[in-house]
């Protein structure tokens, strides 16, 4: 029942908001649907915490300690983003960047996107996972191209082509997975694609086929994670879409894609036995982290800056999962959580700052701290948090990743330190003048809702100081599962 609500509310929201259109209460309705989804998710998560992993609807849906926190995180950030988006989109409409029809499209597709992500996270069926990922891609194409400017059309075309090709590779990987599974599990209905069944027999799956399948799956879903060298779509899509969309793309979609890669990794590692999947994750992760940090320096657009920072962080997380072991996996799961919260708050502040400055170019945004203290300090604190300064949660996870790397793969340490150093200098030197430089950012007609920014940053701070035992237990169990 709770599962039906979790999946049903966003899809119902898609339809209802498509009919409501651009009426005055559409934004409030969007918030309402997201809040209802969050409540339903909370019910489902509570049931899982009480009774252990859940298999629902003829085993088609699965909830364990690995996806439960991602589901909650997705619903939560999805909700706070709608709160931020209400005044933001109202101002955009007043500035004439979106008309009534596009606003309708925006609300409707936002709900569809949330529904597709929740479906991808909750399904136990590797084929359905692919279908949901593709649906998430398609709905975000429409969100990225919302402004219908030349640049946004180009960005979403690039997004479609790159992710379309990528996700086709993932489909081939899924076919190979099914092929290997069918030999063991037989063609009885749909069980041969169910992750729990595959996981039970993973030792018997043909290693050569699974090795090949993993290459395709990693390239396919990895494109959506934004792993270099397949990251080209990411900065464009983040920079050209509306700020709330950038926030959910960076904070949620990248996590969901990485989740898909990891579910595959568990199966493949069980079959091959060797550390090949881990090595591949480490290589892709390190390359993305380094490239993301280097490209940070060359950015002039505030949203592109944070998009490259996302590539860097997804690289670090992927690297940590490649390291494997209880500590690195724990740190990577924590990093997924805090990165998602911090990065979405950064896109909120960056979006609002560029909205009031009238430009996304960083040299046009100045003096936020004096003219708009809440906004300026939100941006500054968010940047400090994303750079991994001590009291915040990202410090904890990066510290754990770094110490594990020093112990197990010392050769990687200099690269990691270099990445963190370059990113620190790059982001700090660009954010500092925006916040403390001379100048002023004019106010916009509707007061922004900056509460989500501080709620997110407060949670990141809290997670840096104290991880609740229930969450820690969840991370530990998930870390053991990922191996």
């Amino acid at each position, binding site marked *: 029942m709770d599962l039906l609500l979790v999946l049903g509310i966003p899809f119902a929201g898609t339809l209802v908001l498509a009919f409501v259109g651009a009426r005055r209460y559409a934004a409030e309705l969007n918030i309402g649907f997201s809040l209802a989804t969050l409540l339903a998710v909370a019910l489902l998560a509570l049931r899982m915490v009480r009774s252990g992993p859940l298999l629902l609807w003829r085993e088609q849906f699965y909830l364990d300690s690995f996806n439960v926190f991602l589901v909650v995180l997705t619903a939560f950030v999805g909700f706070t983003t709608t709160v931020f988006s209400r005044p933001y989109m109202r101002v955009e409409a007043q500035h004439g960047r979106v008309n009534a029809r596009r606003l309708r499209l925006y609300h409707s597709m936002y709900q569809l996107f949330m529904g597709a992500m929740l479906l991808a996270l909750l399904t136990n*069926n590797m*084929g*359905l996972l*692919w*279908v949901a990922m*593709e*649906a998430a891609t*398609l709905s975000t*194409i*429409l969100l990225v*191209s919302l402004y*219908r*400017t*030349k*640049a946004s*059309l*180009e*960005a*979403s*075309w*690039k997004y*479609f*082509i790159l992710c*379309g*090709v990528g996700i*086709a590779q993932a*489909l*081939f990987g*899924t*076919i*190979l997975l*099914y*092929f290997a599974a*069918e*030999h063991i599990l037989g*063609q009885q*209905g*749909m069980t*041969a*694609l169910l992750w729990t069944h595959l996981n039970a027999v993973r030792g018997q799956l*043909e290693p*050569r*086929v699974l090795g*090949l399948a993993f290459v395709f799956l990693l390239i396919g879903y990895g494109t959506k994670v934004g792993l270099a060298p397949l990251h080209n779509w990411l900065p*464009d899509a983040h920079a*050209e879409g509306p700020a709330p969309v950038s926030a959910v793309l960076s904070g949620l979609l990248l996590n969901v894609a990485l989740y898909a890669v990891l579910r595959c990794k568990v199966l493949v590692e069980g079959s091959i036995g060797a550390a090949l999947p881990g090595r591949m994750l480490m290589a892709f992760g390190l390359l993305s982290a380094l490239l993301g940090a280097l*490209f940070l320096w*060359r950015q*002039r657009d505030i949203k592109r800056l944070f998009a490259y920072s996302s590539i860097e962080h997804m690289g670090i997380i992927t690297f940590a999962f490649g390291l494997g072991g209880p500590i690195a996996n724990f740190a990577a799961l924590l990093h997924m959580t805090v990165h998602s919260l911090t990065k979405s708050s950064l896109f909120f502040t960056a979006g609002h700052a560029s909205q009031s400055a009238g430009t996304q170019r960083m040299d046009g945004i100045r003096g936020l701290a004096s003219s708009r203290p809440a906004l300026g300090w939100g941006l500054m604190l968010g940047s400090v948090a994303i750079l991994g300064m001590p009291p915040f949660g990202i410090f904890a996870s990066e510290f754990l990743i770094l110490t594990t790397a020093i112990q197990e793969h010392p050769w990687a340490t200099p690269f990691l330190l270099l990445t963190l150093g370059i990113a620190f200098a790059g982001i700090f030197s660009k954010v500092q003048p925006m916040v403390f430089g001379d100048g002023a950012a004019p106010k916009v007609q509707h007061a922004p809702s900056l509460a989500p920014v501080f709620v997110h940053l407060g949670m990141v701070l809290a997670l840096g100081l104290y991880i609740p035992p229930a969450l820690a237990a969840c991370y530990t169990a998930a870390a053991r599962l990922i191996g």
Partner: protein
Amino acid sequence: MHDADLIAQLLRLLAAGLLLISFAMLSRRRTQRLITLYAWQGAILFLSTCLVAYGEGLRELYYSAALTLILKVILLPWILHRLIHRLGAQWDSEPLVNIPATMLVGLVLVIFAFGLAQPISMLATTITRHTIGIALAVILLSFMMMITRRKAMTQVIGFLAMENGLFFAATSTTYGMPMVIELGIALDMLVAVFILGIFFFQIREQFDSLDLHHLEKLRED
């Protein structure tokens, strides 16, 4: 027994036809021709799926064959034709650089695909196992078409052809994915084409052309 042999032979013939069409796609300039070729690819997929279903007595495959016929032979080509008519792009053609070189690269891709498919073919037990290499080749050739072409429409046809290759790969290795998944994939494809259809009009409105040369502003600076 003789019957099964004949079916296997016919399937290989159809697979060869599929590969040939992929090569033809690489060398065609006119968008309209490409759509026709795409429809033919769908027709071959339909026939081969029916043959496998008949040969192996699998009822489920008839449904997926019917889905192929409706979606890939009739609906999608019809939508694409209507689109280019409304865009006034039916006589569009694009200059292709160096067809012989493209063909040679295509050949190398086919050899690569066969090498890659070798271990899978050896493990497969389907009557179509020898065509896995061809399926992979079709995927790679469509991929190449997407990379080398500069027209929005051609890239989309490349994308759809790639999905055809994937469908063929699924039938050759495992007699197709479970029905629900196939329906999901078909729905995604259909939605993709609708979205891109809307997209074409916007791209043309903004850039006065469907040529993607104009879409190269977002570079790293």
